[in-house]
């Protein structure tokens, strides 16, 4: 059956979860501004549209309604804490709260701050790789890519490494809730969320209290002391922000690192080039982010009617900015399906622009650069045990289930 307009060119199929790029191409070529009946949303797949919409200041990232739709219909009041928690994530906010927290993050994530984190990240990477060196093969996703961002986060929050496993579990389950499997069991997911948020409350409240009394040089201390126009963050807001950093930050970084190792291996000339010229890693990291964006869609709500390409977009409608499609648009990127570790310039849209530019972008880039460069130094002859990898069953994010590699 030929995929067509009615089924959004096949975007909801299992095949598209594994490899969405043929569908993106169809959409971009046939109907670059497409209304999906099933998603009840507009899909934008051209680079120039995605870029323009990312930089448009009048679109909302508020997700309250979407979150309500994830909860069991019968009993929403039982789950109000879930709504309260996620609406405290600054990446779902458009208001002064967003600006207040953003100012704090920008200071914690300046180029200098990130540069100063480099030695610490390098030590974490080296220790992880050292721990894998004795094995013939290992899961580069689970045992490396997924561990590093959690460890870096624990450093940033000044929390013990012993809590790595727990944080990873929380971030896995929270991202599973936010990205919703294709056919979700809403009751089970919401119940699980309630339990996780209770556990987080129990874990974080004493920490927040202690940091307020005796501040240290970490993000939690910075948040409890942050103040704009005399207003401070509540404990729940601090907790929500910690969980956001773990889930939104950690989840995407692990995807980026593992997909880079996977894709690099499919382009042997590029792998050889990067090994021969390690100084290319900074450009290469951008190419990895372009080629496989961990977050495939940016979702926005229209506040005021506007037109694009003669098509009327109405207030209240949902827009999906298809990042993965825009990054492969031949109008912007010559030979877009080719991985080119020296691509320059490379203005991909993976980390957004303007007001909602990813606040962890610099940290994510530093982790990716160090992780890949160090991995190639340590295991220059790594091989994939399986050529294809399996992706988790979601469309808005791209996350491998594993990446077995053989290193001898």
């Amino acid at each position, binding site marked *: 059956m030929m995929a067509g307009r009615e089924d959004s060119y096949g975007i909801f199929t299992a095949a598209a979860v594994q490899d969405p790029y043929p569908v993106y191409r169809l959409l971009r070529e046939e109907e670059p501004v497409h209304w999906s009946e099933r998603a009840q949303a507009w899909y934008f797949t051209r680079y120039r549209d995605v870029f323009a919409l990312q930089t448009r200041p009048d679109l909302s990232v508020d997700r309250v309604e979407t979150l309500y739709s994830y909860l069991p219909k019968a009993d929403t009041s039982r789950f109000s804490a879930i709504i309260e928690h996620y609406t405290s994530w600054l990446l779902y906010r458009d208001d002064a709260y967003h600006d207040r927290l953003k100012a704090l993050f920008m200071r*914690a994530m*300046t180029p*200098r*701050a990130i540069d100063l984190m480099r030695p610490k990240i390098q030590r974490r990477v080296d220790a992880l790789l050292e721990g894998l060196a004795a094995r013939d093969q290992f899961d580069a996703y689970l045992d490396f890519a997924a561990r590093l961002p959690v460890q870096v986060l624990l450093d940033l929050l000044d929390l013990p490494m012993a809590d790595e496993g727990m944080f990873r579990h929380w971030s896995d389950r929270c991202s599973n809730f936010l990205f919703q499997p294709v056919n979700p069991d809403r009751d089970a997911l919401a119940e699980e969320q309630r339990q996780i948020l209770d556990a987080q409350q129990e874990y974080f409240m004493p920490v927040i209290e202690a940091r307020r009394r005796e501040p240290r040089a970490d*993000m939690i201390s910075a948040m409890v*002391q942050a*103040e*704009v126009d005399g207003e401070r963050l509540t404990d729940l807001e601090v907790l929500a922000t910690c969980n956001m950093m773990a889930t939104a930050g950690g989840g995407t970084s692990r995807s980026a690192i593992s997909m880079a190792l996977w894709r690099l291996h499919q382009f042997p000339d590029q792998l050889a080039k990067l090994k021969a010229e390690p100084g290319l890693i900074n450009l290469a990291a951008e190419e990895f982010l372009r080629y496989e964006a961990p977050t495939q869609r940016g979702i926005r709500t229209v506040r005021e009617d506007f037109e694009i390409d003669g098509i009327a977009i109405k207030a209240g409608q949902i827009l999906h900015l298809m990042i993965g499609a825009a990054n492969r648009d031949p109008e912007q990127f010559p030979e877009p399906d080719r991985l080119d570790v020296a691509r*320059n310039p490379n203005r991909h849209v993976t980390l957004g*622009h303007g007001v909602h530019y990813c606040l962890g972008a610099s940290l994510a880039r530093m982790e990716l650069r160090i992780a890949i460069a160090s991995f190639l130094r340590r295991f220059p002859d790594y091989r994939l045990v399986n050529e294809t990898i399996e992706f988790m069953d979601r469309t808005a994010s791209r996350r491998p289930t594993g990446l077995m590699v053989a290193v001898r």
Partner: protein
Amino acid sequence: MAYRVRIETLDREIAVEPGATILETALGAGLDYPFMCQQGQCGSCKSILLEGEVDLGHIYNPLVLTAADRARGFILACQARPQSDCVVAIAEVDGIVTHPVRDLSCIVTARDQVAPDTVLVRLDPADGAALMFSAGQYASLTFPGQPPRDYSMANRPDDRVLEFHIQRMAGGTVSAHVATALMTGDRVMLRGPFGAAYLRDEHLGPILLAAGGTGLAPLQSILLAALSLGMTQRIQVYLGARRAADLYGAARLRELAARHRNVRLVTVLSDPEAAGEGRRGYVSDAVATDFTDLSAHHAYIAGPPEHCDAVRAVCLARGLPAESCFADPFTPAPRF
């Protein structure tokens, strides 16, 4: 016709085609120019335009390249397209701030006796170029007919007019000149900035500022800069002097402490007979009494050498990591 762009920091020149950015050309030439987003969002490639003209581009984050930055000649190399031959310097390399050292001719716009032996001098760079520096740095000043001496800027880096606190030293010819002969309208040559004890604004933990005498100048600059950047962590200021009359900056600090609840001021008088408010003894004693654990702090120390040494020793004994302790050596002798 390509423009020639000289990158001082890397000691290299590149040819930038019309319409191309400095960054993409530098990367294409294999140079190790710092960058991340290439889209004006992150500030990694922030640079200073020393000569020439560029189109700044229009897609950049105004929080990363502020109006004040633009006025002071900062550009983002990933957005800047040369409109002439240019000279640029990279603003930060590996986390180290670098400002180009400049020679500026300044005019004395104010000269106030603020304490029995201390004069506050304001200098306005006369030829239009502002001094680019980081809060806490110093410059070498040459007063008319005098040898050069080092003094710290006491103002915020984005103020055009520079403020210096000059204490009369026993037998010091330069400070005697400032105390007795300097007039508004005099011309002063400035060379700078220098110094590594500048504000680390990425630090999230509490901050200790320990000033002795005119060591207040760089720490006042740091405090003003920190507050203007919205730093909300605890900032504890210790100001030491011999007598109450020597605490020339205390009123201004008290006013800041009243307006910002994260700022706390402690004054310490070393003359046991001295009248007036404040504790007695040395700043190092007060710090030793008030803190048990400084491991998460950043400490900035300025003033006479014995003050700096004593405070530093106390801080390290209270767990302050050596790399979190910032103090430029005080150099009363002329520099050659």
